[in-house]
């Protein structure tokens, strides 16, 4: 368990950050609107926060004495960027020598990235999924990190193994690019086989040991007899001075232990669905190749990132409930040649077809832009409610955080935004950002 303990060591991100109230201090928020989750709202409601969690949400709560009271127009859950490279040391954001064992947490540099982390926090992003190596075909273990400081001042890593990141078709000709997809499928298959092999071994070895144990008991029982006959044979041998020969002993060979393979072990976790697999792919051919290839693995949890040309495959995505992390960035003429211009309308179009849509920045400093990108997506046909869901509930769910993040709900982690308007509007400004129950950013500066 390297991550939290270790990274909690890094120094506080911002000097001007207000001193946190002691963990016991309660925060009581009164708001005109509390967006519990997209589509579920409370008017003139209150939120009580304690010990890093939301203690209660209601319309008739009263402030306990000693609680710090905040008033605002709107409260909603902190935004989540499921697809970021924020906090990585600059070199590691664009690696190519990664494999499934490389870990994003090993490249997190809270010292170099303080400015960007702070900017993201101020923009309302309280948590993000981070993976290595911009275009590496296998990026390795992605982590889930918070933008605000850990209680002891460092980066707050909620999950050091949140997902596996991969890329398909980042380079090469059409055939190479499909090749990436096929290779990915091979890896997963290998992982699956490896798991099977291990299970078989454990059965065999258990069986072998019991059999041997039984025969051992028998041998012990027959030992005296055996000893007698041996002594007898020795004597006989001496008499007709022949050389005494031990009778040979045979038993079933012990089953061979399968050679340990760290990479296959990790791929096995992907195959059995304990780790989601986030694959960046853009072109139709590669996307369909990937979807076809992974059909067989029914426990695999696939997430598509980018997905520029994924629209025609919407049906499949819906059927297999595969979410798409859309990157609604105005690419302009920098868009890769031969890709259709979906960059801004894609989110809306997918959502229309009931595909689970997430929004990601795919960048280091870009993370702070996520709310802007969401607004642009709305400006191109995504329903505001779906946009908010993409930034909160859906993102949390896709990265195994659904049970503690993304909602303003009792028991959930208190990552909250206090706003003076609609969360998705770009003219709204954020009054306070609460992370793990502490005021991590306050527009008024002080407490």
């Amino acid at each position, binding site marked *: 368990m*390297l991550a939290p*303990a*270790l*990274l909690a*060591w*890094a*120094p506080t991100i911002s000097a001007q950050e207000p001193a946190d109230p002691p963990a016991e201090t309660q925060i009581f928020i009164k708001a005109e609107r509390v967006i519990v989750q997209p589509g579920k709202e409370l008017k003139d409601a209150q939120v009580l926060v304690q010990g890093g969690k939301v203690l209660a949400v209601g319309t008739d709560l009263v402030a306990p004495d000693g609680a710090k009271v905040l008033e605002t127009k709107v409260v909603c859950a902190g935004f989540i960027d499921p697809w970021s490279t924020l906090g990585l*040391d600059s*070199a*590691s954001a664009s*690696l190519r*020598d*990664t*494999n499934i*064992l*490389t*870990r*994003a947490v*090993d*490249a*997190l*540099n*809270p*010292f170099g990235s*303080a*400015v960007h982390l702070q900017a993201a926090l101020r923009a309302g992003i309280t948590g993000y999924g981070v993976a*290595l190596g911009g275009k590496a075909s296998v990026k*390795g273990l992605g982590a889930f990190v918070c933008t605000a400081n850990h209680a002891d001042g460092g980066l707050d890593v909620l999950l050091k193994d949140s997902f596996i990141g991969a890329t398909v078709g980042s380079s090469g000709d059409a055939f190479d690019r499909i090749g990436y997809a096929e290779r990915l499928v091979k890896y997963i298959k290998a992982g699956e086989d490896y798991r099977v092999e291990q299970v078989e071994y454990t059965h065999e070895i258990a069986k072998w040991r019991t059999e*041997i144990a039984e*025969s*051992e008991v028998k*041998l*012990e029982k*027959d*030992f005296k*007899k*055996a*000893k*007698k*006959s*041996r*002594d007898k044979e020795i004597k006989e041998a001496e008499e007709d001075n022949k050389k005494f020969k*031990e*009778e040979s*002993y045979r*038993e079933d060979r*012990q089953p061979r*232990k399968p050679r*340990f393979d*760290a990479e296959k072990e990790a791929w096995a976790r992907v195959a059995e669905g304990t780790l989601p697999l986030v694959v960046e792919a853009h072109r139709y051919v590669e996307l369909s190749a990937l979807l076809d290839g992974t059909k067989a693995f029914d426990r695999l949890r696939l997430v598509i990132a980018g997905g520029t040309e994924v629209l025609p495959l919407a049906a499949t995505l819906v059927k297999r409930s595969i979410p798409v992390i859309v990157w609604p960035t105005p690419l302009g003429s920098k868009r890769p040649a031969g890709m259709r211009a979906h960059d801004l309308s894609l989110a809306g179009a997918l959502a229309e077809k009931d595909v689970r849509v997430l929004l990601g920045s795919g960048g280091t400093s870009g993370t702070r832009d996520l709310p802007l990108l969401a607004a642009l997506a709305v400006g191109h046909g995504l329903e505001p409610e779906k946009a908010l869901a993409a930034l909160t509930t859906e993102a949390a769910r896709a990265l195994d955080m659904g049970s503690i993040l993304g909602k303003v709900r009792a028991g959930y982690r208190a990552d909250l935004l206090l706003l003076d308007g609609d969360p998705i509007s770009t003219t709204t400004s954020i009054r306070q950002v609460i992370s793990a129950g502490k005021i991590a950013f306050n527009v008024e500066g002080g407490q």
Partner: protein
Amino acid sequence: MNISSITHLTAALALTSAAALGGDSHAIKVGKVITMAGEPIENGIVLIESGRITAVGPASEIQIPWDAEVFAAPNLVAFPGQVEACTSQGMDRANESIDVAPFLNVVDSVDPVNFFYEEMLRAGITTLNVQQGNSTVIAGRGMIVKPSGMTVAAMTVRPEAGIKIAITPKRGKSRAVQLMILREAFAGLRRTLEDLVQEANDGNDHARREALAQGRDFEAEDGKGRAMTGSGWIVEGLEAVPRASIDSKILPLLAIVEGRISVYMACSTPMDVLHGLEIAKENGFLAQTVLLLGPTCWKVSDEIKAAGVRGVILSSTLEHTERAPFAEEDTVTVLPTHFAEKGIPFALASQNSTTQSLWFQAARCVALGVDREVALAAITSGPAEVIGLSSEVGTIEKGKHGNLVLLSGDPLSLQTQVRYVFIEGKLTYDRTTDTRLQHLMDGVQPEGTSADEPVVEDIHEEERTAGDK
């Protein structure tokens, strides 16, 4: 009275040893002895026999054995030979391309005729810990040498003295990959040992069953191995495996985990330090870890203090200047004072024999506000401690190696010169015969020299520049 009797005794010893060793007994008389162990001694005498100091004291109290070679320098100051706590110079090449290569040994790379040792000697450094360079993951075993002798054997003070582990990625590697390889190295070691134990046990069981079947009496061979020790993790039952039967390639790794060999850990950035300490803790070698810190690592000094490593070596950059992204002002951090204030004892490192030699580093520390005693310790007793040789070198005390430097004045003054250097009692350096120094200081071209000075590579360069970005 007491003292004189002792000296009689030593004299007697000297007589016998003189007979045996042909008079290996020296008395060095100087105006002042800075022992770095207690108050300086005016008009002091240092007695050295068979390479070791047998007595130190004021002339009035020390009786010189009749057979001792007396070296009188009433105007000079004796100072302990300085100790270079970790260097990668003086080897034919500093790095091997293999990532994990603890089976290598710098003994095969140390180059006795390298200019570097001459330079170090000239600067008054008499003990050097030579470790592989930083472009590695787990390096070969290093050694401690003295800058004199024509063969590595002659130079050797301690063989097998530590292993370099680099947390800072080796050239062309990323942090994530570097750390993956490092973790995998130890995880691999553990798996291998576990398998060995398993095999050994299975082997024994089979032998026993065979004996039962054949009706023989069976006494299980108890493993000639040694049980595993260590504070990180332990593989039970390793005693069943004779150490000799373990692949010699991984034995040094086992030595690390069992805490039997020092680790010199190269960390150029604070994040490296955090990862490094974690890995050291996981694998139980924190206590014999020495950190080689880049200029930015002051940012985690609290964690370093808390971790309780064996030692800290500062890079030759003593003042760190950086401009935070989007900031208008530089932030300047004075490293030695910072660590001194945090109560973390540190050793200094030198880059070259002139503007960045150890004594000059110490002088700069004083200039930057470090207590004079602390600064002097950081180039003598401090580094001796760090390399685990404090009982042998670093101060002028009875029982230690006869390593001293005779200076023309205060050790930290610009005008002071290194006049003579004694290593294990032998006069090893004499400024009056140092033609290359005359060349450097006075522009006198020594006959038959190609006057092309060695280029001493600056191993801390990238860190220094890293800070300023």
